[in-house]
């Protein structure tokens, strides 16, 4: 039997807003001394209330717009209840039925489309630290991360190939960084991945929106590579079960990096009832079209548009465009260098080549110095004035029709004649000299 993998993704991104989602504490918790960035609000102390961070809401809308989502003009926060020591209020402020962004879409490089079901905003939890204190095994809680703004993006189960999923995730990371809303650093935990996976046999018509009657969630995956491996291992496991005529249990599974296998964490029977209800401490959010339009107009050019422009306008090969556009700082450096280069006869391809293959940009902090270096490197021995003059005269003799056109007022032929002259000079002509001399000789001929 042939099986088609049906894969959906869930991505958590910690926003890099200065303060936390509902209080004034600093949000950057990485490698900070435990419990030094807390207050009554993010500790969930009696009486404390949340006050929403406007910038985090805007950042989430930016992300939604970048993924072509509809932005709900009426949105709200909800309480999601569960007990866990790192959740000080006994509930997480999240979004349930009216997330900020819904029904987005992303087009993969292959042209395949992936649906974005929703993007919502919530608060991060604290962190449990298990260690030995005075010879006793204890669990400690660090609340520095508690209340940091966290975005959750959920895709439709539209991936049928793990490489598409990885492409999407990498692109998501790039877009998040383009928007400047998060470092999306998996090692620091500011980007976290989850996948849900099932296998469809031939009886299921995916094109009609049919789906297998189960799904397995893969959690706690901390790199693109591990996600790829985990999904592959899980496809193996599920297809073996299905081949043997067994059902796959709906459950949550983790990935064991050393054994390269997935393992059961929680079965469906343990599924939690989160008892969602609207967060009464935060009034509903309302947005006007103008507000959304204003946020939209503040978005930078998206990586896919950049790549397209690099190929179509700068004439770069796609792999060069992809490398340069993968980092917005580098892309901006490149574009600035191309602009400066255009005044010094240095073309985009030359700049791209030296950046991609020679990492020349890593040696020069600013694009101006880079271009200066490129000009030095590519300085040509120009043909002499005599050689240029001879080439021009030869061309004028040979191109009788073009000369006639010029006589009849078609100035555009000059470009063609310059090209022919450079061809004779094997490109060694100083462009300024070639143009000046060609025009004056042409004028003397047609007079």
């Amino acid at each position: 039997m042939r099986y088609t993998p049906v894969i959906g993704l869930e991505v958590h991104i910690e926003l890099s807003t200065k303060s936390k989602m509902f209080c004034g504490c600093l949000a950057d918790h990485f490698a900070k001394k435990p419990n030094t960035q807390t207050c009554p609000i993010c500790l969930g102390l009696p009486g404390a209330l949340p006050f929403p961070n406007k910038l985090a809401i805007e950042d989430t809308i930016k992300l939604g717009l970048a993924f072509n989502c509809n932005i709900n003009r009426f949105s709200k926060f909800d309480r999601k209840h569960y007990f866990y020591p790192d959740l000080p209020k006994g509930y997480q402020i999240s979004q349930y039925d009216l997330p900020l962004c819904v029904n987005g879409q992303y087009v993969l490089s292959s042209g395949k489309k992936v649906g974005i079901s929703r993007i919502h905003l919530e608060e991060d939890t604290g962190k449990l630290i298990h260690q030995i204190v005075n010879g006793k095994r204890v669990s400690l809680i660090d609340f520095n991360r508690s209340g940091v703004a966290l975005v959750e993006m959920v895709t439709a189960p539209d991936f049928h190939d793990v490489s598409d999923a990885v492409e999407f995730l990498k692109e998501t990371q790039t877009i998040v960084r383009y928007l400047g809303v998060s470092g999306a650093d998996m090692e620091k935990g500011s980007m976290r991945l989850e996948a849900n996976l099932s296998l469809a046999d031939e009886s299921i018509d995916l094109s009609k929106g049919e789906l297998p009657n189960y799904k397995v969630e893969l959690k706690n995956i901390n790199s693109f590579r591990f996600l790829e491996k985990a999904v592959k291992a899980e496809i193996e496991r599920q297809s073996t079960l299905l081949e043997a005529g067994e059902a796959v249990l709906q459950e949550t599974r983790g990935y064991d990096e050393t054994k390269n296998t997935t393992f059961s964490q929680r079965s469906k029977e343990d599924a939690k009832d989160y008892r969602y209800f609207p967060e009464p401490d935060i009034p509903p959010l309302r947005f006007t079209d103008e507000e959304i339009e204003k946020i939209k107009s503040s978005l930078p050019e998206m990586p896919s548009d950049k790549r397209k422009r690099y190929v179509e306008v700068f004439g770069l090969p796609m792999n060069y465009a992809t490398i340069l556009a993968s980092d917005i700082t580098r892309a901006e450096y490149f574009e600035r260098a191309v602009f400066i280069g255009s005044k010094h006869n240095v073309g985009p391809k030359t700049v791209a080549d030296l950046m991609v293959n020679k990492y020349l940009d890593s040696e020069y902090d600013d694009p101006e110095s880079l271009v200066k270096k490129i000009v030095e490197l590519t300085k040509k021995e120009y043909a002499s004035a005599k050689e240029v003059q001879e080439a021009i005269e030869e061309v004028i003799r040979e191109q009788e029709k073009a000369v006639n056109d010029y006589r009849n007022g078609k100035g555009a032929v000059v470009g063609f004649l310059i090209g022919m002259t450079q061809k004779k000079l094997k490109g060694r002509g100083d462009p300024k000299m070639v143009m000046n001399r060609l025009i004056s000789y042409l004028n003397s001929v047609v007079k």
Partner: protein
Amino acid sequence: MTMDIPSTINETRYGLLSKKYKVVDLINAYLAKIARYDGEINSFITVCEENAYKGAKKADALISELGEKAFQDYPLLGCVVAHKDVFITEGIRTTAASKVLDSYVPCYSATAVKRLDDAGAICIGKLNCDAWAHGSSGENSQFGATKNPWNLEYVPGGSSSGSGAALAADFCLLSTGTDTCGSVRLPSNYCGVVGLKPTYGAISRYGVIAMASSLDTVGPMAKTVEDVEMMFKVLSGPDAKDATIASVKYQSKSSSFKIGIPKEFFGEGLDDEVRNNLDSVIQIYKKLGVDFVDVSLPSTKYAISVYYVIQPAEVSSNLARYDGIRYGNSRDAFGDEAKRRIMLGTYVLSSGYYDAYYLKAMKVRTLIRKEVSVVFEKVDAVIAPVAPTPPFKIGAKANDPLQMYLTDIYAATANLSGIPSIAIPSGFTKNGLPLGFQLMGPRFSESLLFDLGKKYHKEISYKPSVAKL
């Protein structure tokens, strides 16, 4: 007693300026009275002498230095206040009258507490209440029931039981309460003092232990309408820590008042003495030229049912943070009423039941809100009893939660629709127990309610009375 304790902010100020007494003398007098009588009344959970004397020293210094000007900068200078023990007070134990928090000393103060402190008021202690504000009689406190100073066999009303009782016993000049479904108005009514349930969104809830967040309001309580109004001025207004607070200009009107009488509030179950007293209040207003019209709020008959779905739902959520990991006590320490509400609330929010209970209740709540706003297109205010009966005896309803819930019947409408309501004393029963009424107005109509309240008290030459102990 070595001195007469003043009963209003103005009297206090006059006494201090005319050097009849110093703030420290006031503190001495209040503390002596508390020490002598509160053992029986049980209105305080914590008395903070040290804090009070510290405040007195500062206030006396300000008065001797600045004289009258001190009262311009500090409108409540030297006024002794006590807070319901759900108000978080930095460095002062805050229990919510529950054993769960019996040793909890907070590291911050509620916005309301801070604003009163900043206005010069002096906190003398923390007041008893139904645990977590769950109740209508004060009997649900895990620190023992509070008794009504007017008759110690009777309840003072709840949940802000200590806030009403302490005022009636002259243990403080001002007090704070919270009103989620009558919890300021009921004890004000049963103890013969004035209490305001403000518009939802008028006074910051930051630092007030939450009961049902979409209904909770912070209410000032005192012996006169003027003093409650003064406290309201200090307490109201935007707070960067409570996202539900609106910035509003409060306005009243000078003449041609029209008050509505909702027929649903004057039907079956209303005690005769309460009804007759209300009639006499209406007669006095009529004498003052106020027009009365009959109005109808048909959906209010569902108010209690709606309230007892929404409230436990939010309670179950708000009490989740007392998870046994912090604060030193496990969830076993919750009393019966809290456990009852946690279970009810957890049930109505469970998947499969949410639509049938919570969602439906929210829809009816919207309906009630609409009805109320339609009524206020026709009238400036609505008059109603605060409770169906005068104070009842301690223990009379304690074993029947449903009977107790009915005490809230006239309160729920204001909380569900977010409108303000002021409870005003209007006499006594033949047995010497306080009687009163409530005036409700449209959202943010506090100024108008104060004006109406003052008009009535002026006409009857109202003098606050203190229970004989």
